[in-house]
């Protein structure tokens, strides 16, 4: 594995080695394009295939067959000429396709003719009272520990929320011998009816059978409470209990660990900081980039694939990665495109992979009470800003997320809005009687991940400097 990029210019730079990035880099490199894959993790796989090349969990059924699909993608990438750098944090991308990346404590700049962003998804914020207490974490964080270190909870554990990942995590914890005391399902009852018209596509999709058997497996071992509302975590400096209302009755249970999850949303920070246009997606309740059928964004030369292009799941991500890479090949080396699967074939693969998505999106559309907090519930963790603080600022003239920065510094902390952005947009939209699209989002700025001053100071000033260093 290389430490710094071998060249300064590449035909294609792929950012992110999840399903979309692995597929895109392999496709592009096999077609003969000089391809660099930059990834933040220590190995390939992204979130869904995290630690695919290194997990200590060896019994295949514990993580499920879908997980091991990642191994084939990694094989295919390794068989290609793509240059792959892990622990490489891309912290800046601009409309000139200049990329700044931090690798092993030093920054490097590379330039691409095409960039494929495959930066995946983030968990949606779940701002309930007490969500910032130690002992409350996201299901995704729990799954990271499980995949990379086979760590599972052993204290009193409550899982709350909704969505496919929640059930998958529950099943994985149980298979690895972890403890789950109760699952609090926050799916709104009305969503079942709303999703019904899309049920046929779902029933004939691969999600259905897998999802059903997983839920059955979990329900056999854990008490599942559905129709949960008014969820809150409490404790004095540490989670002590979880309370909720179900069936008209408030219940409080003691807990050491509360895992929260209500779906994932595109990780838009790098794309937005590059100036790519995004629109509010009213079904998925998040910002999604505006893309054409090949994944090309509003910035010439930058395409987006995978969940960063709009949540579609791992199978769709793989196909979207191939489509974006094929489009890059068509643009840069048209003769080589003939060797790749035809675009029509890829698009039909994508349609197949996206089957059932509408049903899932509708069913698992999170309820307003879990997205739009009130009163003293923290919205912005970095600056400890509450929902009331945000509404007070609106009352004295803050009109959108960027103006709010002047009042409350929301979005200006280290997380750069990842944990509060959607909440702030929806909260302000509600308060001002506007749509989220009208309210807008934080203007995001590089570095999209913090870099140290020393590291920036060490940036080589020019090509001549670099050569001087190399020659010693």
């Amino acid at each position: 594995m290389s430490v710094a990029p071998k060249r300064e210019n590449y035909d294609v730079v792929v950012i992110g080695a999840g399903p979309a990035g692995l597929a895109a880099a392999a496709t592009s490199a096999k077609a003969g394009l000089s391809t660099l894959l930059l990834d933040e993790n220590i190995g390939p796989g992204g979130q869904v295939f995290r630690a695919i090349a290194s997990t200590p969990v060896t019994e295949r059924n514990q993580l499920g067959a879908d997980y091991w699909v990642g191994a084939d993608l990694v094989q295919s990438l390794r068989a290609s000429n793509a240059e792959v750098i892990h622990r490489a944090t891309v912290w800046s991308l601009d409309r000139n396709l200049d990329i700044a990346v931090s690798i092993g404590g030093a920054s490097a700049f590379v330039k691409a003719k095409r960039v494929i962003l495959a930066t995946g998804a983030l968990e949606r914020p779940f701002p309930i009272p007490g969500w910032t207490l130690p002992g409350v974490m996201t299901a995704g964080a729990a799954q990271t520990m499980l995949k990379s270190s086979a760590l599972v909870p052993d204290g009193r554990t409550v899982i709350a929320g909704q969505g496919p990942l929640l059930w998958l995590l529950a099943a994985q914890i149980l298979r690895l011998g972890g403890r789950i005391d109760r699952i609090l399902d926050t799916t709104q009852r009305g969503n079942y009816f709303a999703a019904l018209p899309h049920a046929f596509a779902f029933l004939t999709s691969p999600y259905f059978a897998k999802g059903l058997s997983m839920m059955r497996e979990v329900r056999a071992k854990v008490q599942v409470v559905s129709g949960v509302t008014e969820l809150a975590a409490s404790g004095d400096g540490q989670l002590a209990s979880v309370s909720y209302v179900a069936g008209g009755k408030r219940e409080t249970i003691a807990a050491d660990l509360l895992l929260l999850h209500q779906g994932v949303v595109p990780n838009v920070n790098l794309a937005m900081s590059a100036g790519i246009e995004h629109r509010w997606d009213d079904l998925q309740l998040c910002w999604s980039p505006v893309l054409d059928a090949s994944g090309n964004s509003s910035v010439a030369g930058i395409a987006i694939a995978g969940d960063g292009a709009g949540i579609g799941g791992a199978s769709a991500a793989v196909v979207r990665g191939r489509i974006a890479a094929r489009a890059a090949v068509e643009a840069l080396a048209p003769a080589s495109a003939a060797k790749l699967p035809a675009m029509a074939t890829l698009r039909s693969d994508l349609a197949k992979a996206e089957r059932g998505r509408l049903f899932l999106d509708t069913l698992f559309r999170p309820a307003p009470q879990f997205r739009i907090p009130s009163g003293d519930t923290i919205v912005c963790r970095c600056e400890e800003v509450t929902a009331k603080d945000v509404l007070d600022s609106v009352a004295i003239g803050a009109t959108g997320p960027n103006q709010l920065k002047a009042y409350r510094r929301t979005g200006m902390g280290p997380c750069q809005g990842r944990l509060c952005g959607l909440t702030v947009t929806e909260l302000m939209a509600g308060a001002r009687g506007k749509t989220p699209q009208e309210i807008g989002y934080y203007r995001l700025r590089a570095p999209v991940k913090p870099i140290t001053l020393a590291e920036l100071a060490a940036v080589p000033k020019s090509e001549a400097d670099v050569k001087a260093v190399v020659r010693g």
Partner: protein
Amino acid sequence: MSTNVDAIVIGGGIHGCSTTLHLCLAGLKPVLIEKDYAGRHASGVNAGGVRQLARHIPEIPLSIRSMDIWEKITDLVDDDCSFESYGQVLVAENEEELALCRARVAELNALGFTHEELIDAAELRRLVPAVAETCPGGVVSRRDGAANPAQTTTAFRRKAEQLGATVREGVAAGSIRHRDGLWHVDAGSESFAAPVLVNAAGAWAGRIAAHLGEPVPVETVAPMLMITSRVPHFIDPVVILRGRKLSFKQFKNGTVLIGGGHLATPYQDRNETVLDWKSLATSAQTVFELFPVMRSANIVRAWAGIEAKMKDDIPVFGPSSRHKGLYHQFGFSLHGFQLGPGAGAVMAELIVNGGTQTRIGELGIDRFHPSTL
């Protein structure tokens, strides 16, 4: 149908907002038209320096006038604007630079200005203990300080509205025309008419001036800034270097703002800037050398605000040389924030009284176009 008002101010930066507020205080009913929102560009995202230090001589009287307002800013806008006054220090990194400092202070003293004070190495170390041992001295302006620019601009806008100004944000001023002694300006579906028009449109003001027959040598620039994560408190005053492009300010919450005038590429019509990380790396190197305590700090964010820079680096401020009722207030060339409060007060005096006690003669647009009025 036009809505008649007393004055139309184009541009919701610190200058447009301040002038609007001061016109209200003088009893006028102005309208403020801002194409984005107040403080969207340079006024909301600059370094927040409230600085008399190292200014061009023609703008010093305006800067001093402004400083008097800054010191009572809460009385004016009901908001402290996070203004704090720990002074600003210009650091000489060697004896040659210190000699230039000495000459500068002598020049100012000869002109009767006493706000800049030469300091030796001991006083420099007292004011800025973290500065590198090798620096022989510098200049301090003790009344100077810093404020939060977005908070300030927003506060001026809010106070102006409370005092009766009409504020239109998100609509560009269009079809500017002079008819029957009145200026007419469209703002979206509305139209306003007034005997007075103030061009405070920042990076967009040069176009308005040119459209009205008064082109000036101005360019659009976007100075870059970056901010770090919180580090332990180590510095109070704002620090600028005599010889290198660097300004440096630690906020109460521990974050450190690093600026100094390295430029991004502005894409004015898209409201966008593309940062030049290699220049920012130069700033980082300078900080690395001068403030070892900063070496492990994280750079959290970098950005640039779009603004107007005049070829001669001093603003265009005062009445038009061609049109009655037209006033210019733009081109502040990377140092307009501190001037905002005072410039608004002086502009209101020019409009209401036809003159001001504050010396601004060298800032007029008549330095490019001899007056025809």
